[in-house]
Each structure stands twice: as structure tokens, then as C-alpha cells.
């Protein structure tokens, strides 16, 4: 539309948008504020805006006991973490083979995550965090792996069978989750897999597969056919042409799809709640803080909510473009 040019009009537009922004973020800001209050301040009769901030809620959430020298440990861990993140960001500018740099940074992160419970007396919330990382990573790898193959096949195959698969996938995506999650419980019990990561990962892959293949297919459709055909003329098989020629061009689409898979796996509550007993992921662990009699749950829930949000916000800061692109691309809501 043609832009509004008069001054009062523009002012009104910004005012409305700012109001909507406030409406969007008030719960986040309020929860963040509650999470750094002492319980006494957080549950006072009227909302408190002036208080002495404290990290005791986070400490109680993540640690079983206070370490002897918390400042230096926190400083060391934060420094190591920041260094690894910088390595990931600036990998392109380092004059080494890029996959080597990425590999080293990821290995460093894994070592760091393993090192933390050795240095600190971590509470169970840390275990839930690790569970979430394992489940999310596993789901992304398996889901994108088989999804790329299928998405490519569906983009290039013109037969009726392809349409049937696509429509069936759409139908299954829309079904109420419980219609297959309850049978998963039965399958898991029969195979003695309840509470295992593998069951959660493979079922998460399955429930997200319809969405994954639709989205990847739409990205593969944008790639011209001549690309792999010329490679195949040179004597490469279709699979080789796919891996060597198509996948490198597809990276942006793969990253966008992986991002959505990450959100879906990281956010999943119902399925994990039913298929695990103690090996919870963060959403299930956090839901334990609602209701209940323990008054400390008020501030612990706030600290847990902020803790679970920070990793996602960091990831999205890096990939906001892909997120918006994927959202706008169409049928993409989990």
C-alpha cells in the first residue's frame, strides 16, 4: 500500500504498533523481573518494581549446592562458552577448512556440557536440559536426513503416488495428536522403551515428518532440474548428483526446515509427557512448577521459564531471516 505521509497519521501508526509490542512482551518482561526477585518480593501484596535483585532462584534451579568460588567458575564457563560461539560465528573468516572449525567448535561445546557437572554440583534441571539437547539434536538429524531424500523425491517425481503421499501426510498432520500418541504408549510398553530417548526421538520424527517433507519439497521445487541432470549426463548416478550438486545448493532451505524442527522438538510437551517417566525434557520439567502447594514454585517457575527461553532466543537471533522466510512460505505451523 502507498505509505501514509502526514505526521499525525504516522505517529498514530507507531503508537498502535508500540502498544501491540507491549502487549506482546509484557509477560516475558514481567516473568524475567519475577525471576530475579527474592520470594518475599515476588509474592508481595502489590507488584514490586524496586527490589534487590538476586540470582538465588537460578541457583536453586540449576545447582544442588553452592560452589566455593562461584564467581571464578561462572567467569571461566561463560568465557569458554563465548569463545566457542565466536568460533562458530567467525568460522568463515578462519583460514582453515571450514568443516574442521565447525567440528572443533561443536566438540568443544559437548566437552563443556560434560565438564559442567564435574565442576559443579548440578541439580536435576541440568539433566533435563541435556535430555532436551539430545532429543532435539537426534530429531533434527534423523528427520532432516530422511526428509531431504523424500522431499527431493516428491519434488521430482510426477506420478500419482507422489500426490497421494503428500495428501496423506497433510491429513495425518492435522489429526489430533492423542490418536497416535496413546498407541505409542502401548508400543513403548510392549517394547520396553518407555522413558528412553530413542522412543521420544523416533516418535517426534514421525509426527513431524509430514510437515518436514512438505517444507523441504517446496524448497527443492525451487531448484532447476538442469542442475542435477547435467551432473547425471557426466556419468554420476542420481544419488551422487543429489548429494554432490543439489544438497550444497539446498543449504538455506535445509537450515530453515531444521530451525522449525528444532522448535517443534524443543517445544513438544504432550508426547514427551506421555512417553517418559523421569527422563523429561524442559517443557515437561517446567510444567511441574505449576500448581502444587510449594510457594517457591512461583519464582522457580519464572527462573525455569527464562532459562528455557534463552537458548531458543540465541538460536533465533542467528537465524531470524530463515524463520520469517519459512513462516511466510506457507503451510508451516506445528
Amino acid at each position: 500500500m502507498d505509505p501514509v505521509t502526514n505526521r499525525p497519521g504516522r505517529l498514530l501508526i507507531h503508537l498502535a504498533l508500540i502498544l501491540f509490542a507491549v502487549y506482546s512482551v509484557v509477560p516475558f518482561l514481567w516473568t524475567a523481573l519475577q525471576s530475579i526477585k527474592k520470594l518475599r518480593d515476588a509474592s508481595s501484596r502489590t507488584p514490586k518494581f524496586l527490589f534487590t535483585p538476586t540470582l538465588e532462584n537460578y541457583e536453586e534451579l540449576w545447582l544442588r549446592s553452592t560452589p566455593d568460588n562461584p564467581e571464578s567458575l561462572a567467569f571461566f564457563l561463560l568465557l569458554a562458552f563465548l569463545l566457542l560461539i565466536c568460533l562458530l560465528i567467525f568460522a568463515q573468516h578462519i583460514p582453515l577448512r571450514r568443516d574442521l572449525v565447525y567440528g572443533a567448535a561443536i566438540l568443544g561445546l559437548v566437552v563443556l556440557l560434560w565438564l559442567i557437572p564435574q565442576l559443579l554440583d548440578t541439580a536435576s534441571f541440568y539433566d533435563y536440559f541435556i535430555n532436551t539437547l539430545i532429543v532435539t539434536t537426534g530429531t533434527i538429524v534423523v528427520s532432516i536426513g530422511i526428509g531431504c531424500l523424500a522431499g527431493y523425491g516428491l519434488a521430482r517425481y510426477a506420478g500419482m503416488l507422489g500426490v497421494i503421499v503428500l495428501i496423506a501426510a497433510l491429513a495425518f498432520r492435522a489429526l489430533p495428536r492423542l490418536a497416535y500418541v496413546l498407541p505409542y504408549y502401548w508400543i513403548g510398553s510392549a517394547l520396553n522403551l518407555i522413558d528412553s530417548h530413542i522412543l521420544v526421538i523416533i516418535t517426534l520424527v514421525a509426527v513431524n515428518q509430514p510437515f518436514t517433507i512438505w517444507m523441504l519439497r517446496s524448497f527443492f521445487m525451487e531448484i532447476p532440474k538442469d542442475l542435477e541432470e547435467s551432473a547425471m549426463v557426466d556419468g554420476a548416478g542420481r544419488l551422487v548428483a543429489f548429494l554432490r550438486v543439489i544438497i550444497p545448493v539446498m543449504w538455506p532451505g535445509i537450515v530453515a526446515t531444521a530451525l522449525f524442527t528444532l522448535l517443534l522438538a524443543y517445544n513438544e510437551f504432550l508426547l514427551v509427557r506421555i512417553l517418559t517417566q523421569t527422563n523429561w525434557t524442559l517443557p515437561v520439567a517446567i510444567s511441574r512448577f505449576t500448581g502444587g502447594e510449594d510457594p517457591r514454585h512461583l519464582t522457580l517457575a519464572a527462573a525455569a521459564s527464562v532459562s528455557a527461553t534463552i537458548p531458543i532466543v540465541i538460536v533465533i537471533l542467528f537465524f531470524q531471516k530463515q524463520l520469517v522466510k519459512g513462516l511466510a512460505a506457507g503451510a508451516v505451523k506445528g
Partner: protein
Amino acid sequence: MERRVFLGFAGPSIVVMTLLMVLPLAMAIWLGMHFITFDNVLEPQWVGLRNFAAALGDQRFWQSFGFTALYIGVVVPSWIVIGFVVAVLLDQVTGFARGLYLSIFLLRFIIVPIVGTIMFRQLFEPSGLLRWLYQELLNERFRYTEQTVKSLILFHGIWYVTPFTLVVYFAGLQTLPQDLIEAAGIDGASRLQKIRHIVIPHVRSLTLFILLFSIMDSYRVFDSVFVLTGLNPLYKANTIMTYTYQTATQLERLGRANAMAVLTIIGIMVVLIPNLYLSWKEQIAER
């Protein structure tokens, strides 16, 4: 691409979907015909169609269905209206401000739904910001009652998903035919007339898409209701998903819950079938 090659590529995915979606669905029907509690999960007892009959005769099942319908009826139109209005406003802003607003609006979309609901709920906990405002403005204690809890669920529903419709409409506005707008401007059309006669018809197919997906998604609302009610039956605010879940986990009637899950599928067919039909036509045309 030949069919054999296609099956080679799509095979793993099709196998996973068949084993873990088609098969479980058939199993849900089969399990729905058994009496199962957590004690006899692996030795279910055959009861035929009794679970289905019991679910259909269960007043609370219909109550939860009614609340789900109310939820859809309130929340989906709000998403569409708010999403459209904010998208039009956002379209007026350019450059850095646009990106900033968009990031802020999208925050709700990326948050873990359970966490988003807990954050929302924090506003209404003792000493919560909105609880305090409620008490100051209405001069009345805020209490969790059937009415307030139901309103909170609806209010949260509107708050939570608006970014999705907003982004889809916003993307749609970027493809608006500029020549039509200019021609209308020359003919002296006012801004509202342009929106009414050009913009709204332009996003009509998007609206249909949003409508179908939003109805299907809000039909299976679970996480927020779980957090806001704590599954307390006092509030009579169960949706079909939470009631089915409750039947499975708290009442330990796994067979009955499976039967209910199968029955809820029939409810979704009303929007699912038109949706599938549209996609089918589109795919056939694209071939």
C-alpha cells in the same frame, strides 16, 4: 524420475510414517475396543464398542467439545482480525523499525508453548501485574473460578498465536499489485476503500488457508489449558484434548481414551476434508 527411483528416495520417510502414524491410528481403533488400565497395558480385555458408546454418552465429553468449539469461535476470528490489522500497520513502516517490530512480535511464536503459558500466568499469580490491575480497577478480588479461568484460556489463545497470521498476511501484502493501488488512487479512492476493494480480495486465498489451519490447530489446543487449569475439573474448562488426556492418565481408562481420540478425528473431518480437497486439486494442477 521413475517410480522405482522415487520409492528409493521417499522410502525411509514413507516407512516411518506408515509404521508410526498409519499403524498407530489403526491401533487406536483396536485399543479403543478394549478395557485397559496401567495395570493390564499388555493384556487388554476385549469390550467391543462399549468404550465408544460410553464416550458418546458422557456429558463431560460433550462439555469439553462445547468449550473447544467456543475456543475456536472466539480465538480464530480474533487471530484473523488482529493479524490483518497489525500487518497493514506494519506494512506502513520501513527499514530498521520494521525489523525491530517484527522480532518483538515473533517472540511469542518461538517460545515454548508451556513456558509462554506459564509466563502469561505469572501476570495473574499473587502480586502479578494484571491481577493487581484487575483488583484496582474492579475493586474486587481476583479468584480462579470457572469464568475467570475460561476467560484466561481464551485471552491467552488470542495472545499466543496472533504472530502466525500476522506474518502470513504481512508476506501477502508484499505481493500486492501496485498498479491497482495507483489506479485506485488516481480515481480518488480513499485508503479504507482501497483496503476494502483491493487488499482484502487480494488476501482472500490466504485467509482461507489461515482459517483452515487455525481451526485445525485450535481444535487440538492442549498445552495452555493444561497449565491454566492444572486439569482441575472444578473449572469445567476441559477441551477435548485435555479431557482425553485426563481420561488416560488420571482415570487410567486407556481404552476409553483411545476411543475418544478416534471420535475426535470425526470432528476434525469437517475442515480437514475441504482442506485436503483444495490441496489435492492444487497438486494435480501443478503436475
